[in-house]
């Protein structure tokens, strides 16, 4: 098998790999395409070129937490979803709030989640999030009972089209409200 000898051919190989992959491909994955390896800067350059090549096309090359992937441009979503009319049911508020707490306060225990939400949490909910591969257990807190610590996964970021947690919507910062700001009228 003769190896690729020009940049166009290298780019084509990367493109074919990305188009046929079922999950995002990391730079490490892409390096493995070439028996003699490839320099990181070259690889990045080729990916940038590839991104540019597809700008006018139906697919776009995006980078998410676990690597690069091709996905349909958003404007096609209304049409594409018609192919699979059985839409996933809406997530419950309980699930979304639990997910938000884990995403923003990770790593957290069940107790932490219950404290913030003010209600006991249904164990099914945690399991549901784990089955979705959006959260997993990253350790145990060193307190009696050694409760599990939950965190969001890379898959969660991938599914939300994010490169890292920092891309999540910003949390409203109430810490600025220190006690002097809470100057209550005690007769209230």
């Amino acid at each position, binding site marked *: 098998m003769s190896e690729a000898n020009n940049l166009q051919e290298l780019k084509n190989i990367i493109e074919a790999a990305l188009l046929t992959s079922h999950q995002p491909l990391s730079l490490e994955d892409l390096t493995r395409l070439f028996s003699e390896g490839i320099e990181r800067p070259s690889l990045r350059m080729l990916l940038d070129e590839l991104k540019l090549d597809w700008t006018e096309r139906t697919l776009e090359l995006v980078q998410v937490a676990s690597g690069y992937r091709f996905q349909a441009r958003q404007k096609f979503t209304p049409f594409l979803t018609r192919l699979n009319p059985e839409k996933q049911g809406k997530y419950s508020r309980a699930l*979304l709030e639990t997910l938000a707490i884990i995403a923003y306060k990770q790593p957290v225990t069940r107790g932490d989640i219950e404290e913030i939400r003010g209600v006991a949490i249904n164990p099914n909910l945690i399991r549901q999030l784990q089955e979705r591969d959006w959260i997993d257990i990253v350790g145990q807190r060193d307190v009696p009972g050694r409760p599990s610590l939950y965190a969001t996964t890379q898959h969660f970021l991938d599914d939300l089209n994010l490169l890292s947690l920092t891309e999540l919507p910003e949390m409203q910062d109430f810490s600025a409200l220190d006690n002097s700001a809470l100057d209550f009228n005690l007769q209230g």
Partner: protein
Amino acid sequence: MIETPLNAKIKGEAFTELPLDLYIPPDALEVYLESFEGPLDLLLYLIRKHNLDILDIPMAELTRQYMQYVEKMHAIKLELAGDYLLMSAMMIEIKSRMLLPKPTEIESELDPRAELVRRLMEYEAIKLLAQQLDEMPKVGEDISVASAYYDHITLVKPPEVSLEDLAAAWRNVLKRASHYEHHKVGKAELSVREHMSIILRRLKTDKMVEFSELFDVVKDGIPKLVVCFLAILELAREGLLRITQQAAFSPIYVQSNS
């Protein structure tokens, strides 16, 4: 409050003033009960609905309003009430601490409501983020990941084998085969019954056949000849054919008995 007189009657009496407390018709409660995610959610709802200042919560009013809901909940959904009852106890505690005279020397003492306010604000922030998470495009819903068809064949590298290993393996096969050679019990491939039918069919057309003609010594192997002979004997035993010989060493004839 609007200063126009109310044209309403309750139990026959003219109702002239709007109630000053935060009134929600009890029937309306049921509609909302399901949608609250917990006591904090309910409190936030009450605060927002009545435009209360979250930094200066009128505890008495809020507690009264809150208790209405909880009682309703208690009536229809007992298992939910636990967390809610805990909150009402906490609220009453806050209110009673507020009523205590504040020792003037201790300037730094926190407002009894501070912790509740902190929790309400934290919860409200999370609630907002949960909504935002819900609205974000997700793979499988709003994001379609490209996946061109490709039969993901894993390249299997055949293991190396030396000529010596191969030779040894072959010797092994031969050795094992020799164990089986002499006591091989073959399955009967020739059916006596089948040959009985063949012979009877032949005798139907030819009526009388010379015994030796039933055997094709050139084409048939010994097993077949034996089976054929057994078939003739069996047919004779069952009285289906007759075997005759005029004299010693003269030709033997076989004929159907039917």
